[in-house]
């Protein structure tokens, strides 16, 4: 009589092996509702079944870690009894199907994760990937995602203080929308998503439940094909106003001490919230599903439990303190509805108008899910893409032309077209604004500040996922160091293709290994994150794209610098070695249409020494600016230091690198992307001290020129290779993306 056949299992994304395990755990066949509960909790998105064995290898502990992975967000100590609470999360699949709402609800989801912890969200950052801007589809998705991020974040009043955006055809069918939220909490106020206390009431609060987003978690666990547009009903619609009310009300309720635990209903909705809260508290929960506020009539328990309607929270209050909790929500015109209670059992039991409709062991849903050690295989093409022989090639353009092309490249060009749509001033804490590498916020009532950066380079990871992932950690960490922040914690968003393919799984395993090694070497514990797999369309995967978010602690928020030159006449010093590495560079991709070679080498000990040095120099007030050298190499880095300075130019003389054939010496010197380099500007009076400090730290340092004049001028081996007025270069860089968006709009 069972209606669960192979077709039903397929619709639920449950394999026959998994189904057998469900029957074993239940000791019987599940009914349809129970199958639904298992299908979402055991989906890749919720169970991390393919990634878990790898994630376990990441370093997650350290003296500052207040909360590691496993809760709604991680937390690190920042002194004075305060903690930085943060996490990054993706909303990739929904953003392809419905860019505005997909991105908006992604922002909403990560904000809920942060305030659920008892922290007030104070900043947002995002890491975005789109297809080539030359295509209408990519422009439409880019435009919609940016509007959606702004539409939600701006309204709720949390500033977007930074991020990075990359355009590459590899993301045409699978854009990436990764959003990091940073919050602030007192250690004592951190609240966990756990249920406890038999008889304690379970409350539902927030938006009513509709049929939207049913099986969203399952959608995020499958590849796209030509019918993906039909999945639009699985994308939720966001209501930032409701979330704002929820946030304020929840933060107020948390102050009452009447709360036991709280969790947002994100992926897998009420199913996830009830089972995870009970599981963490080692208890059970009885819920009367008909009491759940519903937006539509005739909803079945299945639909109610699997809905991913946004802006909903589940909370457990202390028995006897119900009125206090209800009163706070009433003040905000929200209704806290009691839908169940905590039980002494180890089961989640669901009732519908009093009849038992599901009865499942809690841990079966949360802990007993499948764990796959999926086969991994290094792709056959891996070795060949790492071969880079410049010998038969010639630079296609002069250094000057290449410089201009790189400044206008969408990857390097200013992202102000997007950032100007994000409110970065609300909250009056934002010190360093989007577009200056790390975002920096002060903390009212404390001396400290926080710097945050998100970074990832899919091209590097495609060429070598292990080294590429290490480079991502190093770059994010280096960026916060350049703002004077000591890196103290990280969060990762792992965006990959279909893990059932051994070469994708190999990329994943290698990337996680790289993150682990780099985080251990740089002392950056990973406190949480998100995995997004199945980023494939019609069998074509994205570049493996781990995105790292790193939080840095500024001892004094006033002791920070940006990339921007502050005065003419300062010495320009470069730390680190220029090895002229062009493998995986923007130069090769842009000028020669070549994604080839090994990504830049990385010596983690040298990287750490560099970052420690830079932090101490910034804190000591010895440098006026600091900028990490990455996409576009030293030439682009120097140019970026002049942008926003009001036209302060720079003149430098570089020694040509010896590592490439003669025709490429200029290009490799100017545009090579060797890692572990930082450009600083130093007033004359501090130069000797800075060089001494660098020598003591074992960091190569060289005075390469001075700030001043109105031009960017770079000589290599005595010959002028690049010379351009700052204003002209800045115009090119600042308007490149806007021009593409505008001319496209005009054409449409």
């Amino acid at each position, binding site marked *: 009589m069972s209606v669960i056949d192979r077709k039903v299992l397929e619709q639920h994304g449950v394999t026959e092996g998994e189904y057998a395990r469900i029957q074993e755990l239940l000791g019987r066949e599940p009914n349809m509702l129970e199958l639904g509960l298992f299908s979402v909790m055991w989906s890749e998105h919720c169970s991390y079944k393919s990634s878990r064995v790898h994630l376990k290898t990441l370093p997650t502990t350290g003296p500052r870690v207040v909360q590691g992975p496993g809760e709604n967000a991680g937390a690190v100590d920042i002194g004075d009894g305060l903690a930085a609470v943060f996490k990054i999360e993706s909303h990739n699949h929904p953003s392809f199907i419905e860019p505005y709402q997909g991105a908006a609800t992604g922002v909403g989801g990560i904000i809920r994760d942060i305030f659920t912890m008892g922290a007030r969200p104070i900043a947002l950052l995002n890491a975005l990937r789109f297809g080539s801007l030359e295509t209408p589809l990519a422009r439409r998705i880019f435009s919609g995602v940016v509007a959606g991020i702004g539409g939600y974040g701006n309204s709720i009043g949390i500033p977007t203080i930074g991020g990075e955006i990359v355009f590459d055809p590899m993301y045409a069918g699978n854009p990436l929308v990764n959003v990091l939220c940073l919050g602030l909490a007192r250690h004592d106020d951190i609240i966990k998503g756990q249920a406890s206390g038999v008889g304690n009431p379970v409350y539902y609060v927030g938006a009513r439940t509709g049929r939207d987003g049913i099986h969203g978690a399952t959608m995020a666990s499958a590849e796209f094909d030509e019918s993906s547009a039909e999945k639009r009903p699985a994308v939720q619609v966001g209501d930032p106003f409701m979330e704002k009310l929820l946030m304020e009300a929840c933060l107020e309720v948390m102050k009452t001490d009447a709360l036991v635990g709280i969790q947002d209903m994100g992926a897998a909705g009420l199913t996830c919230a009830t089972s995870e809260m009970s599981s963490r508290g080692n208890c059970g929960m009885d819920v009367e599903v008909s009491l759940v506020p519903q937006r539509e009539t005739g909803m079945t328990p299945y639909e109610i439990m699997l809905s991913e309607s946004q802006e909903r929270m589940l909370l457990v209050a202390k028995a006897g303190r119900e009125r206090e909790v209800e009163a706070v929500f009433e003040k905000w015109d929200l209704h806290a509805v009691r839908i169940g209670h905590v039980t002494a059992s180890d089961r989640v039991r669901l009732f519908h108008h009093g009849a038992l409709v599901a009865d499942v062991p809690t841990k079966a849903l949360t802990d007993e899910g499948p764990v796959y050690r999926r086969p991994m295989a290094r792709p056959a093409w891996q070795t060949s893409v790492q071969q880079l022989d410049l010998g038969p090639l010639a630079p296609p353009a002069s250094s000057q032309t290449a410089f201009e092309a790189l400044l206008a490249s969408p990857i390097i060009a200013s992202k102000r077209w997007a950032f100007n749509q994000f409110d970065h001033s609300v909250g*009056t804490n934002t*010190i360093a604004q989007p577009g200056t590498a790390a975002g920096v916020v002060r903390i009212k009532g404390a001396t400290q500040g926080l710097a945050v950066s998100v970074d990832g380079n899919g091209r590097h990871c495609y060429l070598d996922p292990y080294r590429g992932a290490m480079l991502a950690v190093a770059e994010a960490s280096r960026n916060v160091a350049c703002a004077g922040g000591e890196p103290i914690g990280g969060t990762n968003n792992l965006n990959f293709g279909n893990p059932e393919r051994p070469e994708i799984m190999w990329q994943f395993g290698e990337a996680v290994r790289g993150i682990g090694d780099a985080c251990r070497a740089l002392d950056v514990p990973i406190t949480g994150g998100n995995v997004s797999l199945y980023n494939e369309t019609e069998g074509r995967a994205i570049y493996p794209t781990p995105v790292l978010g790193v939080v840095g602690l500024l001892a004094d928020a006033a002791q920070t610098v940006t990339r921007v030159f502050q005065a003419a006449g300062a010495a320009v010093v470069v730390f680190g070695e220029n090895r002229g590495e062009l493998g995986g560079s923007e130069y090769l991709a842009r000028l020669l249409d070549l994604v080839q070679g090994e990504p830049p080498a990385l010596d983690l000990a040298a990287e750490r020494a560099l970052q420690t040095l830079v932090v101490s120099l910034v804190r000591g007030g010895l440098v006026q600016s600091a900028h990490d050298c990455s996409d576009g190499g030293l030439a682009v880095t120097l140019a970026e230091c002049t942008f926003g300075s009001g036209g302060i130019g720079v003149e430098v003389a570089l020694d040509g690198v010896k590592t490439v054939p003669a025709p490429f010496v200029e290009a490799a010197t100017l545009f090579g992307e060797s890692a572990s380099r930082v450009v600083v500007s130093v007033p004359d009076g501090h130069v000797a001290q800075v060089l001494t400090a660098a020598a003591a730290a074992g960091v190569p340092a060289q005075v390469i020129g001075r700030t001043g004049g109105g031009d960017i001028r770079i000589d290599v081996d005595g010959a002028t290779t690049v010379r351009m007025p700052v204003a002209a270069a800045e115009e090119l860089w600042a308007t490149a993306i806007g021009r593409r968006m505008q001319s496209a709009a005009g054409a449409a």
Partner: protein
Amino acid sequence: MTFAVIVFPGSNSDYDAFHAASAVVGAQASLVWHKDTSLGGADAVILPGGFAHGDYLRTGAIAKFSPIMAAVNSFAERGGPVLGICNGFQVLLEAGLLPGAMVRNRGIKFVSKMVPVRVEATDTPFTGACTAGQVLRMPIAHGEGNYFAEPAVIEALERDRQVVFRYVDEAGQASAAGNPNGSINNIAGICNAGRNVVGLMPHPERACEASLGSADGRVVLDSMVQAFAAGVAGGRSLA
């Protein structure tokens, strides 16, 4: 003196205004919930930025029905100084305390950036400490800040010097290039005929400390403090 900062559900720059008025400027400030009916003896009122009531229907359209607005109306009628910032300005327009309306920014998009704004009138409680023509750098952050009114209303505003703030370019000129949202005549802020109610789209409260990129906006709040000290406007009897 005491600023009352009204908190609507959806206000998001309420605490920014509170912080600027209290911690930075050094005045007293209180947060007043929109369901309250009294301003609690405040000497000046700030309607803060945000998206009151979700800005559903139209920006500011529902906020005018909040219980506290009756108190704000009568405070304004008695000459009490009221400052509406961004969404607060939109609320003042909807409430009829200021003339005109806001429409979507030219170019449709939300605009968030630091802009130069010229002070056009120094005879309001919020600009008394400015010099005429002074250019202030303040952030804007809005999707609907494109000020619109019938030609006759614009003419009257200009004639009666009720345009208090105007967007300008880097050279200080009210040019098309200096207009970030399409507002008629580059209007960034206006006052009522009594000159005690001022609304503006830029955020002076977010530009009160140099570390945040500009301290130029502080003069707006300082003006109010000085006006109160001089007894020109405000006064506890008003509330």
